[in-house]
């Protein structure tokens, strides 16, 4: 199935300028699978979203449609067909 990923503007320089990335992923996939697919296409985005152990960075949020994955099942949150996954910086910062 196809999933559309929207990237925050601050991530776009690391995705060749793209703000939208359409990915082919398996039916029944989860946020982790989508981020794996995203990292395969844009590794510089991938390591900004998760550290090398695979943990979602503390100040990055991933939304499945309107829902923050942190409020659901985290990286194992199911991503339904046709969902829009948004990768956004949190309001926190230094």
């Amino acid at each position, binding site marked *: 199935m196809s999933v559309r990923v*929207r*990237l*925050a*503007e*601050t*991530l*776009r*320089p690391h995705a060749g300028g793209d*703000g939208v990335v359409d990915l082919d992923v398996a039916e029944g996939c989860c946020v982790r699978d989508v981020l794996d697919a995203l990292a395969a296409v844009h*590794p*510089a985005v991938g*390591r*900004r*979203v998760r*550290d*090398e*152990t695979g*943990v979602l*960075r503390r*100040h*990055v949020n991933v939304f499945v449609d309107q829902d923050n994955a942190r409020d659901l099942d985290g990286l194992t949150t199911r991503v339904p067909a046709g969902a*829009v996954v*948004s990768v*956004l*910086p*949190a*309001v*926190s*910062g*230094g």
Partner: protein
Amino acid sequence: MVMHTCRWSALPFPIVLAADEPPAGTPPEEASFVPPPGVIPDPAPGMRAGPGDVVVLVGTTKGLFALTAPAGRGEWTRSGPWFPGEEIAAAALDARGGRNRLLAGAMSWHFGPSVYSSDDLGETWREPEPTTLRFPDDTGASVARVWQLAPASAEQPDVVWAGVEPAALFRSDDGGASFSLVRELWDHPHREQWQPGGGGLCLHTIVPDPTGGPRLGVAVSAAGFYRTLDGTTWEAANRGILPPFLPPPAPEFGQCVHKVAQHPTRPDTLFVQHHWGVYRSDDFGGTWTEVGEEKLPSTFGFPIVVDPNDADTAYVVPLKSDFFRCAAEGKLRVFRTTDGGETWEPSGTGLPDDDAYLSVLRDGFGTDGMDPAGLYLGTRTGEVFGSVDGGETWNELTRHLPPVLCVKAAVLA
């Protein structure tokens, strides 16, 4: 950003819309998307400098800046910021092998750490792909911050060392493009007992062998000084360093070495600014002797610098106590020894000395290696001071920067 000419008003100029702001006719699915936050400021152009010019890289909590000047160091030009909004705790100008490569260890609070390099004085920066500085999978660790980037000696022109948090040493053999973990230190049995200092458990200081040999020293807060003499076997080397924050007797490790300084022509001699105490070793850390007590207004401080032209001349910036951490006596002063620590004298004409509660971090003090040496002092309040007469007189080179994390000076090849 996408340029759209405004057709529906009398405005005579184009307006700029964010790339995701939907133009008219966008399907509902697109229009429903809220434009994401976060805008990257335009990158700064490269610095304008040439061979023989002095470059002072100033890493701050909000990006990397540079001060440049001709060899006389009388008139300075400021460039940057590069990586605006990111913390630059590590920076280096690698002028070995005929190149002038800038290295920057950046940390985005949102997107994590990375190492960037530029071979055109900051005009363009690149991040190596696919490899970058990261822990191997089997360690289960992740890099939180790059604390130090240290080009090795001229005899090893492609070797660059990196110190990171959590405390680990990395080596690059391609000029900083890719790094690999130094396993021998990572696997040291002490590591599991190392405790973090206020800045985290970081490997913040690297002392490469200036002759190109295998000897190497590192400092970890709060574990102390570790050394290898053969390039593979590591040992704690803190004998004589007394940590007042631990019950006696002094342990083999657990010291809080804030900074280590070495002279390139006398590499056996090291100076340490400890978390209380200024120490000297003449056997590359085999034993240490306190050289600051009752001579300095405070033996607490962070940076220590050895004069590149005299192995017996060193500089410290005493701070008032570990609980206050501001310039002792309300005067920002550099204290200098010219006899290896036997005596110290204040220098500092031109530095703020009237209720001046400034502070300087461990990498906020550097030298350019010239003769006479240029000394550069960056503060947590965003000033950079410079001296070209051994610290006798100082000038403010710039002000109103974000808090300064590191100051690294070198001469362009």
